[in-house]
């Protein structure tokens, strides 16, 4: 199967190591992928705050392009993989609202029609965590491991928008896909009840005191639970938790230095891929694996 990949704006910016490691890991597993041609921004939370119908239309253009790309595929849903949690949520929500609300579907399709596009609802928006754990399978992943992450204690951070409000592939309150995946890579995972607590999203850039406090709570608890590293599934979570550690220190007078990486980077390391391929050199807080 050939996967359509929706990068979203962040994976071309601050989340570049996510794109690099995600694509490298797919390739290592022998899975073909193609970037969605001429994709546009999903609209994130900001667009929705200004104009809801336009936000749906914006996201729907991507769904329509994915459908047109697979015009011959009529029975099976067309998987569109969106690694960023906000993109994943907005694209899923648009698909669902077009299904649930006849009025939204009609109006969005009329708008798409103005540009010769339409969306029939045949796309399945997928998060890579779902793809790896449930489609590709832990067996195949474990087979590919050449450098098990033995002794590495990982706090698995899901954040908000991949499990809420639509937990299609995991439990809303206590998801476990990432723990199982990391177990297959040979890592240890720590028990960390804050794994679905919000990092504050864009608050780190808008109301800084509040955003930093939310991140500090997460980091502090992860360290207390004995984590060597936090694994994330979202470019904004990763950015917030990693890049503001010095500002958190200045604000709260407490140093917490904890590497925060993408779960796909850990997969790549376990597969024996080079650090550079996985964008490890782009991290602010380097991850040092025990020798051997």
């Amino acid at each position: 199967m050939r996967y359509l990949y929706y990068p979203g704006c962040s994976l071309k910016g601050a989340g570049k190591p996510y794109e690099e490691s995600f694509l490298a890991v797919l390739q290592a597993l022998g899975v073909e992928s193609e970037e969605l041609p001429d994709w546009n921004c999903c609209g994130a939370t900001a667009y929705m705050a200004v104009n809801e119908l336009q936000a749906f239309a914006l996201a729907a253009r991507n769904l329509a392009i994915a459908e047109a790309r697979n015009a011959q595929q009529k029975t099976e849903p067309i998987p569109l993989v969106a690694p960023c949690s906000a993109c994943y949520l907005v694209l899923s929500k648009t698909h669902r609202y077009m299904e649930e609300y006849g009025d939204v579907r009609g109006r969005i399709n009329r708008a798409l029609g103005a540009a010769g596009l339409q969306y029939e609802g045949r796309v399945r928006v997928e998060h890579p965590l779902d793809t790896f754990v449930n489609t590709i399978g832990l067996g195949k992943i474990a087979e590919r491991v050449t450098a098990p992450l033995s002794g590495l204690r990982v706090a698995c951070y899901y954040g908000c928008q991949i499990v809420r409000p639509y937990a299609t592939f995991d439990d809303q309150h206590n998801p476990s896909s990432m723990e199982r995946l990391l177990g297959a890579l040979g890592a240890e995972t720590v028990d960390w009840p804050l794994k679905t607590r919000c990092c504050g999203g864009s608050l780190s850039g808008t109301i800084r005191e509040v955003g930093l406090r939310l991140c500090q709570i997460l980091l502090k608890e992860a360290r207390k639970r004995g984590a060597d590293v936090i694994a994330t599934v979202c470019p904004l979570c990763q950015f917030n938790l990693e890049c503001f550690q010095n500002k958190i220190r200045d604000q709260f007078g407490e140093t917490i230095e904890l590497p925060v990486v993408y779960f796909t980077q850990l997969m790549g390391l376990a597969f024996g891929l080079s650090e550079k391929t996985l964008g490890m050199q782009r991290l602010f807080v380097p991850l040092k694996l025990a020798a051997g």
Partner: protein
Amino acid sequence: MPDQRFQRTIKYEAELDPGFGREVAASPGGESLHACIQCGTCSGTCPLSVYMDYTPRRIIAMTRAGFKDEVLRSDTIWLCASCYSCTVECPKQIKITDVMYALKQKAIEEKVYAKRFTIPVLAREFYAGVKKRGRNTESWLMTNVMLKTNPFDLFRQSGLGLALFIRGRMGIRAESIRKTGELRKILQAVEEETRGNPAASGVKETS
């Protein structure tokens, strides 16, 4: 002792906007607003409610009762980070995050927020950039927001920008899609449809 001033601390019904709750309930996801039993589960699960001027539970009660002005001027609607905790926990399945979106849209439509308040400025700058180019460029977005809110921040945040840049995590070039004309047509079609409709972006459930 200076003159004592007495200010009424309640609102008379005549000063409320009774249609406000109905308007909000008409947006997608708002339909079950009137089912709220005021249990406070939303406020209890919200990681931001401790920073809010009115908790989510109070915002719902006030919206239904027609306290339009207080609700649209509250910090609460902007502090909501869309984490959907409340939506998932609500025993009456009210899509509270969607209600917050509907309130943000109304506040922006009616321009009732402080001019330099970062969050609505960010939303509007994001909106404008994406509408024009189809993609958002993090460095451009943050620069524009800082210029319009607190230009001094440009210096304070330059260290972070530089650190991202040298790690290849920040693009300078404005990202854009190829078919910007196609996107413009789609967004214009939405605008034309909603023009003349007082609830500009609201939608009624007719499925």
